[in-house]
C-alpha cells in the first residue's frame, strides 16, 4: 500500500518535471526560431485577426458588464460613509490593473487558446505536422511563432477595449442607475489613475497573450492519441492556461504595482 503511494507520488513528480522541461524546450525553440528565421508576416496577420477580431465582441461584453457590476457593488459600501466619489477610481483602477487584462486573458484563453490547441492537435494526429517537416518546412516558424506573436501583440489591444468598456459600463451605472453626478465619476479617475497603471495593465495583457497562445500551441503540437487526444489537449490548454494566467497575475501585480 505504502509502496504504491510513493510510486504514485514519484511518477506524478516525474510527469510534472517532464511537462515543465518539455514546455521550456518548446518555448526556447520558438524563441530561437523567432530570432533565427524570418517572420511569416502574412500568417502573423491572419492569426492576429483570428485571435483579435474574433474575440473582440466577447471581450467588450465581459469588460463592460464587469465594470457595471463593480460600480453597483462598490456603491453599496461607499454610500455608507458618503464616499461615492471613490466609485470611479475603484472601477477604473480595478479594470485597468486587474479585471481588464485578466478577464481578457481568460476569455481569449477559452476561445482562441483552445482553438489553437484543437487546430494544431488535429494537424498532429492527421500527420500534417510531420508532412510539413518532411517538406523541409520549419514547423515552429510556420505554425507556432506567428500564433504566439499574435497573442502577445493582440491581447493588449483587446485588454484596452475591455478596460474602456468596463470604465464606461461603470459610468453608465453611476449616472443612469444610481443617478449620481458624472463629474464626480470622471474627476476621481483623473485624480487617482496614472499612466503607469495603464502601461502595467497592458504589460500584463501581453504576458497573458504569450501564456495562452504558448500553452495552446504546445498542447496542440504535442497531441497524441487520436480524436480523444485532441479533446484532452484542448481542455488542458484552457485549464492550464487559465490557472497560469491567475497565478502569474499575482506575481505581475507584485512586480508592476508593488505589494502595497
Amino acid at each position: 500500500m505504502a509502496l504504491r503511494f510513493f510510486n504514485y507520488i514519484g511518477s506524478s513528480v516525474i510527469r510534472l518535471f517532464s511537462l515543465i522541461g518539455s514546455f521550456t524546450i518548446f518555448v526556447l525553440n520558438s524563441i530561437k526560431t523567432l530570432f533565427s528565421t524570418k517572420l511569416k508576416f502574412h500568417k502573423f496577420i491572419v492569426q492576429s485577426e483570428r485571435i483579435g477580431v474574433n474575440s473582440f465582441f466577447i471581450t467588450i461584453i465581459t469588460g463592460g458588464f464587469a465594470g457595471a457590476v463593480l460600480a453597483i457593488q462598490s456603491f453599496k459600501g461607499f454610500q455608507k460613509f458618503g464616499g461615492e466619489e471613490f466609485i470611479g477610481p475603484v472601477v477604473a483602477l480595478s479594470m485597468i490593473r486587474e479585471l481588464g487584462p485578466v478577464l481578457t486573458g481568460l476569455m481569449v484563453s477559452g476561445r482562441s487558446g483552445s482553438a489553437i490547441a484543437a487546430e494544431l492537435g488535429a494537424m498532429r494526429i492527421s500527420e500534417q505536422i510531420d508532412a510539413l517537416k518532411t517538406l523541409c518546412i520549419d514547423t515552429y516558424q510556420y505554425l507556432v511563432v506567428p500564433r504566439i506573436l499574435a497573442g502577445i501583440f493582440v491581447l493588449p489591444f483587446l485588454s484596452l477595449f475591455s478596460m474602456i468598456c468596463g470604465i464606461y459600463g461603470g459610468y453608465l451605472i453611476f449616472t443612469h442607475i444610481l443617478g449620481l453626478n458624472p463629474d464626480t465619476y470622471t474627476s476621481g479617475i483623473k485624480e487617482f489613475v496614472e499612466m503607469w497603471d495603464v502601461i502595467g495593465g497592458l504589460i500584463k495583457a501581453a504576458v497573458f497573450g504569450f501564456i495562452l497562445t504558448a500553452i495552446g500551441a504546445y498542447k496542440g503540437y504535442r497531441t497524441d492519441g487520436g480524436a480523444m487526444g485532441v479533446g484532452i489537449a484542448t481542455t488542458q490548454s484552457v485549464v492550464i492556461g487559465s490557472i497560469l494566467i491567475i497565478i502569474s497575475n499575482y506575481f505581475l501585480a507584485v512586480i508592476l504595482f508593488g505589494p502595497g
Partner: protein
Amino acid sequence: MIELIDLKKSFDDKWVHKGISLVIPKGQMTVIIGRSGQGKSVLLKEIIGLIKPSSGKVLVDNVDITKLTGRALQNMFKKFGYVFQFAALLDSLTILENIAITLLENRKSLKEAEPIVKEKLALVDLPTNITNKYPSELSGGMRKRVGLARTLITNPEIILYDEPTTGLDPITSRIIHELMFNMQQKLNITSVVVSHDVEIFNYADNVALLDDGKIRYYGQAKEVWQSNNPYIYQFVRGLPEGPIKTEVKS
C-alpha cells in the same frame, strides 16, 4: 542506399523493434510487409528521421540520420519524399497551395509555381482543373495522388510510402501501384513501401517481412510465392496457423 543496423525502438516498456537490420538497394522498390501494429510506419519514420530509434543506426548514403538534428536533419529531408497513409494534405490550403507549399515557402509566387504544379499533376495522372479545390473535395485515391505530386515537387531521390492503398478499392489500388512503379522507373527513385497489400509484389523488387520486432524474411518479390520461409508462407496466404502470432483465433 539505405542501411538499417540493429535498430531498436521502445515506447515506454513496449519494444516495437528488437534489432532490425536491412539493406534497401538504391533505385529499387522495397516493400515492408507485416501485420498491423508491428511498427512498420514507425520504421518508415525512423528511416526519414521523424522518430529517433532507441538504439542502432540508419545510414542514408553512409550518413547516420539518427545523429542528425536541426538544419542537418532538414537538409537530409531534401533527399526524401514521404507519402502519408491518408495523404496528410493541409486542410486549409487549396490543392495548388498544397502541392506548391515548398516552392511558396522558398519565395516563389503562386503564378511561378502553377506550371510546375500542373506538370506534377500530369505525372500522377490528375486533371489540372482541381488546383482550386480543397482536399476535402477530393476522393481518397485523388488525395493520395495529390500527396505523391506534392512529394515529387522537391525531386526526391528516395520516396517512402506509408500504406499507399489502404482504404482504396482494388481498381484504384492497382492504379496507385502502377503509378508508383512508373515513378520509380521513370525517375530512378529508391522506393520504400509499407503495405498489407500482396498485389504490390507484382511491382516491387524486394520484400521484407516484419514480425515481432524483427525482419523474418527478406527476398526478391518474384520469389515470394515460392518461398518456404514459414513467416512469408503464412502471411501471403493469410493462414491463421504458423509462426506469426494472431490475437484472434477462428
